[in-house]
């Protein structure tokens, strides 16, 4: 607990508190990293793909419903002929 409070003091006592707010605000819902890939052959572009990766704490993105463990329906038996 003492160590946690010491770390918390560092956070709240930061000289650049404005940067803390900026980071906390702008990255509140995570960050999207985007990359483009073009796959080609013999200098001919064939496939273009844009990949977007969302980096975020799970509890800020996933809803309560998404976290519910939903069991798949039981499989029905097929009659053998």
């Amino acid at each position, binding site marked *: *607990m003492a160590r*946690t*409070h010491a*770390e*918390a*003091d560092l*956070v*709240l006592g930061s000289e650049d*508190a404005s*940067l803390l*707010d*900026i*980071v*906390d*605000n*702008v*990255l*509140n*819902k*995570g*960050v*999207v*990293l*985007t*990359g483009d890939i073009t796959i080609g052959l013999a200098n001919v572009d064939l496939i273009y793909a844009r990949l*977007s990766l*969302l980096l975020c704490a799970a509890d*800020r993105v996933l809803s309560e419903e998404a976290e519910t463990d939903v069991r798949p329906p039981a499989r029905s038996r097929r009659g053998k002929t």
Partner: protein
Amino acid sequence: MTLCVYAITAAPCAPVVSGVRLHSVGSGRVWATTAPVRRPPALTSASLRRYERTITAIADTSPAVLPVRFGTLMDETEVLAVLRSRRTALTAALRQVRGHVQMTVRLIEPPLPPDETARAVVARSGRAYLTARADAVTSRGIPGFASVRELLGPWVRDERVERAGGVTSIYHLVHRRAAGRYRRAVVDALDAAGLRAVVTGPFPPYAFTSW
């Protein structure tokens, strides 16, 4: 053309930021404020500061604004498709934040007394367990904050709570014109409750958006 999406607004909003005119894409009551970019924004403090200045400039121009995730890049067709598909949810969210700003309270939670800690571990009943889970994501679960929250009731339209590393961040959605009164009230209430905290804001409603 690749667009960086900064925010969602209820009407076209295209301020000039650092000499660059932003563009508004959309229709009806849901618009996206964007700017063309050649590459994704770098994840640096300078880039985050620029992003924050842009969001603030948009919020200064528009009464209802939902900041968008840093680094969201799309072309215009994709933006329009997303706005169409999420029109209902975005309209409701814009209505919720209209005329409001975010105030942030960061406090170091005092340690629980030993008997409270033990009680917190053992769920007395199913109802108690569910109540404790619900309180954990609101300010009701913060030791000593109940009196503060009660005093702030008239000004707080919505609330989000995040806990990490011994620091609890409480985000309150407050009417723009009440931000000053809210700040004075929360500082006095925190002092009276003996809680150590830092109050910042007003900010655009970053914690009250989902895109």
